[in-house]
């Protein structure tokens, strides 16, 4: 077979419609747009207009909303992680973090956090440090001898929010997190009294601190 013998199947391609190329073409004068009026002009699209009848997109009730608190997470399934470990792109001795997943090419770009989901199987013992984990995935990881520590994503998360999130997620996680939990309240108690008076002083006029001291 040579290059000059190649051809596509008959009917595989359709000839382009050439519009406005003279009366002989059949699409000459008005180029298939009829005579005059809005729809014969360029740039016009009368979408969803039903001749004055209440159009379908207004006839039906509005529904749903956009959750402004929605987190844009990377979803990673266990099977994908296992295959990366098998291919040796992911080091099973190190903790699995966002950076490790990025380096292994499992996630293309980091979003607001990583959530581990339970599809596929995991056999290797791995310790995770991620934003979220599904119950099934956690069970599977622990069954394989691994552990999960939940960490909030530092990016975008405001400082004050970070502390309570840690406290919430701590019960799920294991030993290292518990140590952190013990530290966290201590830090809070140390910091917050110092900060709060400062804040109130700035916000409130000079009168307010005085009654406080009396009480």
């Amino acid at each position, binding site marked *: *077979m*040579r*290059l000059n*013998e*190649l*051809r*596509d*199947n008959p009917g*595989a391609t359709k000839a382009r419609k050439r519009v406005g190329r003279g009366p002989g073409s059949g699409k000459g004068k008005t180029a298939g747009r009829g005579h005059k009026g809005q729809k014969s002009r360029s740039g016009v699209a009368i979408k969803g207009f039903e001749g004055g009848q209440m159009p379908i997109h207004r006839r039906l009730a509005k529904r749903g909303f956009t959750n402004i608190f929605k987190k844009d997470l990377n979803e990673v399934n266990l099977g994908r992680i296992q295959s990366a470990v098998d291919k040796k792109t992911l080091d099973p001795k190190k903790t699995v973090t966002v950076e490790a997943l990025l380096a292994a090419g499992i996630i293309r770009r980091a979003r607001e956090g990583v959530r581990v989901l339970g599809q596929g199987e995991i056999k290797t013992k791995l310790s995770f440090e991620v934003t979220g984990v599904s119950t099934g995935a956690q069970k599977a990881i622990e069954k394989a001898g691994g552990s999960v520590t939940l960490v909030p994503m530092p990016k975008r998360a405001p400082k004050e929010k970070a502390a309570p999130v840690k406290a919430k997620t701590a019960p799920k996680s294991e030993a290292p997190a518990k140590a952190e939990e013990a530290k966290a309240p201590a830090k809070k108690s140390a910091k917050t009294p110092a900060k709060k008076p400062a804040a109130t002083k700035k916000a409130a006029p000079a009168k307010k601190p005085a009654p406080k001291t009396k009480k």
Partner: protein
Amino acid sequence: MKSNVTTIDAKSAGTVDLAESVFGLEPRVDILHRMVRYQLAKRRGGNHATKDRSQISGTSAKMYRQKGTGRARHGNAKAPQLRGGGKAFGPKPRSHAIGMPKKVRTMALRHALSAKAKAQELVVLDKAEAKDAKTAAMAKKLDKLGLHSALIVGGSEIDKNFGLAVRNLPNIDVLPVQGVNVYDILRRDKLVLTKDALESLEARLK
């Protein structure tokens, strides 16, 4: 399917089995046609460009007043209907590539190999090597093998002397196995595969 193996000195060197799923297909002309079109479209540079009216240098001032000159109405001199004006809807740099699914592309390679095998235009060499880089000697050898227009596919690396010896021969192309493609196969009369190339192709396409 069996095929004879020859050495570069046109001596017999046994036979090899060709995989039916790679070399034994009924060639589909339409797929080969699409693949060649894909390759030729994709290799186009697409760096053609013209200037539209906003890119022509010059003043944007009105050429002369609207009324009373006895001449036609005009705005600025860069308009496309005027000499020296910008081009309306001219070519702009773009990719000419057309889409084609990966699986169909590998299928096209299988069909190209099958087409060569079916037309008895497939030659299997044991090795594509040369002692020294002499073109005249190599030309004689290829002549003996009946190769006047051929694509020779070597292993993952081409023997240096062989590559040099063949380089200046008209209508003889050499490619390492990872570079094998439908267009280059169909461009020449014969396809020559070394044993190495055959092995890695079958591993890839089976």
